[in-house]
């Protein structure tokens, strides 16, 4: 305990030092930034190339192609790009070829007042995105992202030619969210492809895709997507504020972003959602939420997240409402079972045996007869064994994973019971818990923690402990907020109108308003008279 405190103190001290350091650093780094941006291109191509070689180093994937531009007056030029990051076809056919062979210049253009670089840009390059810059840093950064840089002798500016393209996975069915009905595309690692997938769902200029770079070293592209006029401006401002506050060196996955912007970092509940499916992102954006795309990951973040969203799937809205509503209730029940079943079993068998119906007590008592461990030890032990098996099954290659599950089932399900190490009812409870925990995949992690907490509470104070735990859980959930939206809405605070898409899913024609708690600016979703009905008699007569 004491050593813990000591280490804690050391850590705090270190933090304090770091804080001071970072404060002094931030001013220093600002100076450095300013200084470095002052290094601009000079008129000499040779000098410029040396500058580039200096800053790019001798990386093997950097190509510096020096050539002569075929203009009436021959000019020296150099193209700098990264091989794997650029499309060689564009480089060869649209940049090098016109520059070296197919000069379109004639006398009229020659006589115009344009300087060389502008002439090349306007008349010779057949590439869509071309821009100019004279800052070395800017050029290098862009080069790192796959842009080709064209340097021309005698010019203090360089052309940035968009040639970025690299091998990417094709758009594929998402692995984590499989559906029976609905779109089968999933996001991939490429940011541009991902935003395109979204744009293809919402063909509307109001869909805003704002880009920014996060991570001092990785310079990861991050893109905020929302619909202007639906999303609450304060929500967008808050997202931008939090994203701008991320001063870290690396962002490798959207999980990094998530952990830097969540409201409650110590909570076991995630307050930022993620999904792999463009259609769910589109649906969430259309409800007034915002999405955060991160380059390099198929997982797109959506904020704000409500608890009930974990119990909804995109498919719910594609199928007819009755069965879906039933399934929704089943999901809520399954989640409750997955966190409470072992605890309830422990509480019933060690504290409240009088609540077990007599015939059931008979069979449970006879199954438990001769079992050496107390119920709480059984519950915790079995829970841990189950988690081990699950983890082994996930990490191992599929064929081996199957072997693991067979061994696990045999060892735990069969032998342990016949050997009298654990009671058969416990195995049933743990198995039920395990299956139930898979029903709501988004909450498996919180469920796992809660399960153990509740088993511990039940183990030492029975049903009262469970009750206290539930109240505590409820207090925590009620006080959580996700980007200003109460996490437990529309249940607490209650919004009767929003309950239409909570425990049940009302027919689409009845869901005429967007969820009010997300702070949608335009609450009305569509027309009020949407309920389909057969043509009325007058109409059919006239036909």
């Amino acid at each position, binding site marked *: 305990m004491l050593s813990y405190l000591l280490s804690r103190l050391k850590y705090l001290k270190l933090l304090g030092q770091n804080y001071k350091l970072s404060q002094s650093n931030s001013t220093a780094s600002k100076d450095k930034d300013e200084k470095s941006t002052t290094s601009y291109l000079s008129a000499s191509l040779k000098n410029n190339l040396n500058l580039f070689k200096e800053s790019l180093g001798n990386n093997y994937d950097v190509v510096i192609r020096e050539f002569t531009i075929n203009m009436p007056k021959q000019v020296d030029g150099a193209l700098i790009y990264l091989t794997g990051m650029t499309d060689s076809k564009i480089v060869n056919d649209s940049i090098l070829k016109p520059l070296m062979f197919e000069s379109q210049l004639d006398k009229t253009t020659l006589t115009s007042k344009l300087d060389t670089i502008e002439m090349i840009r306007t008349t010779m390059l057949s590439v869509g995105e071309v821009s100019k810059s004279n800052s070395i840093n800017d050029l290098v950064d862009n080069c790192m992202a796959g842009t080709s840089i064209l340097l021309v002798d005698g010019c203090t500016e360089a052309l940035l030619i968009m040639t970025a393209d690299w091998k990417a996975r094709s758009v594929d069915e998402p692995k984590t969210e499989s559906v029976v009905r609905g779109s089968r595309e999933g996001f991939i690692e490429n940011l541009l492809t991902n935003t395109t997938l979204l744009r293809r769902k919402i063909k509307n200029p109001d869909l805003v895709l704002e880009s920014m770079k996060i991570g001092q070293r990785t310079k990861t592209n991050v893109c905020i997507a929302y619909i202007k006029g639906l999303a609450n401006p304060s929500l967008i401002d808050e997202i931008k504020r939090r994203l701008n506050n991320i001063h870290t060196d690396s962002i490798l996955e959207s999980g990094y972003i998530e952990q830097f912007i969540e409201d409650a970092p110590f909570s076991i509940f995630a307050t930022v959602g993620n999904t792999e499916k463009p259609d769910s992102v589109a649906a969430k954006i259309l409800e007034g939420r915002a999405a955060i795309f991160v380059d390099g990951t198929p997982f797109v973040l959506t904020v704000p997240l409500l608890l009930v969203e974990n119990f909804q799937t995109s498919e719910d809205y594609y199928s007819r409402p009755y069965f879906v509503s039933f399934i929704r209730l089943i999901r809520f029940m399954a989640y409750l079972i997955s966190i409470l079943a072992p605890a309830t079993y422990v509480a019933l068998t060690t504290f409240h045996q009088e609540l077990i119906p007599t015939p059931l007590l008979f069979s449970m008592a006879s199954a438990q007869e001769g079992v050496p461990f107390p119920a709480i030890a059984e519950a915790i032990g079995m829970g841990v064994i189950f988690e081990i098996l699950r983890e082994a099954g996930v990490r191992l290659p599929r064929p081996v994973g199957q072997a693991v599950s067979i061994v696990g089932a045999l060892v735990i399900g069969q032998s342990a019971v016949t050997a009298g190490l654990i009671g058969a009812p416990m195995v049933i409870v743990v198995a039920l818990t395990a299956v139930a925990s898979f029903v709501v995949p988004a909450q498996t992690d919180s469920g796992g923690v809660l399960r153990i907490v509740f088993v511990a509470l039940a183990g*030492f104070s029975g049903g009262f402990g469970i009750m206290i735990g539930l109240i505590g859980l409820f207090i925590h959930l009620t006080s959580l907020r996700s980007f200003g939206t109460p996490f437990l809405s529309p249940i607490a605070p209650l919004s009767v109108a929003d309950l239409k898409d909570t425990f049940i899913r009302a027919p689409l024609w009845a869901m005429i308003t967007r969820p009010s708690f997300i702070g949608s600016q335009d609450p009305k979703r569509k027309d009020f008279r949407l309920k389909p009905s057969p043509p009325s008699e007058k109409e059919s007569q006239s036909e």
Partner: protein
Amino acid sequence: MKSVKKVVALMTTILILSLGTTGCWNRRELPSLGIVMGVGLDKSEDSGKLEVTAQLIKTSELNSGGTGEGGGGGSGGSSAYWNLQNTGESMFATIRGFTHKSSRKLYWPHNQVIIFGRSLAENGVQEYLDFFVRDQETRLEVYMLVAQDKASDILDFQPKLEKIPAVGISELMESQDANSQTCVTQLNEFVTRLMSPTTAPIAPIIKIEGPGAKSELSVEGTAVFKKDKLIGQLTKEETRGLLWAINKVKSGIIDVKCPDCAGTVSLEIIRSKGKITSQIIDSKPSITIEIEEEGNIADQSCDANLVAPDATEKLTKQAEKAILDEVESALKKSQKLKADIFGFGDVFHQRHLKEWTQMKDDWDEIYSNLEVEITVQAKIRRSGTIGRPATPEKEQ
């Protein structure tokens, strides 16, 4: 959200502190329980003390062995129950005394039956009931019975279909609705009657019938208590007479003579309603019992055609007569015993509060001479899947 972290930290410290320092107070693992299924109370013959028999289940034997068929209670380790006996002065002390004999602590919530031995019941049951009402482990819906002889014998009687005698008895009580000739009594009803200043508690009587190996358990008749002391008993017909009046008849058979010939016709009761009302006319109290009954023809031994309206009319009259007889016999018996099993006193108390204050004190006398009018209205609704009996048609 600094507070969340703090709260979690505080919670874990509390958890650890409470786990480490205090342990678990009420924890009882299932195998450490001696689950009591039935309890019998007797008066010890030699010392006159209280003798309690508690029936525990042997959980290890529950799944092994047969259904107890031929086990006969004592054949080796095959029986799934264990009858513990202890004698003592007070109820709770005697029950705690079981800990000297049983390795597992007795666990009461699943207790199904309480059986009073006859001699104990005659001396009063009040002092022994308090435990069953007060203790938090006991429940109010246990069945109360009075043994014809000794309660311990009843609990030692291995039923043929069940493994555990107490379970057998409670199942038996649940099937009594078919006849409505037993007043199935749960503890809360018994105590409610006991708390009334006038109403006499009742409980069914259980006995072992038949000789030796062929003997069987049977529930029949009603024990009538005065205050908390057993003073008499009703036969099964009288019991149904009582149940008619207090609206407890669920089903059953009324045998009546065939109106046309010498055979017997059985009428199955499908619905019945009993209502007790009180009047005080010229300061003379009287009671009216109204009984409505509906039945079907269930069985007939003769070949008369009973589906004709006039025959049905006659049958109905006979059924009404039969019911009236049953109620009257019960009433007569109770008036003789001066035990208000019908709860007439409570009816007066509820409806005629003013007069009741004067009647209360000499209620016993009033009761034994109370004027009771009984009206019975029977109906026959259906005749089963056939109309006239399946016999050669008679020439009219």
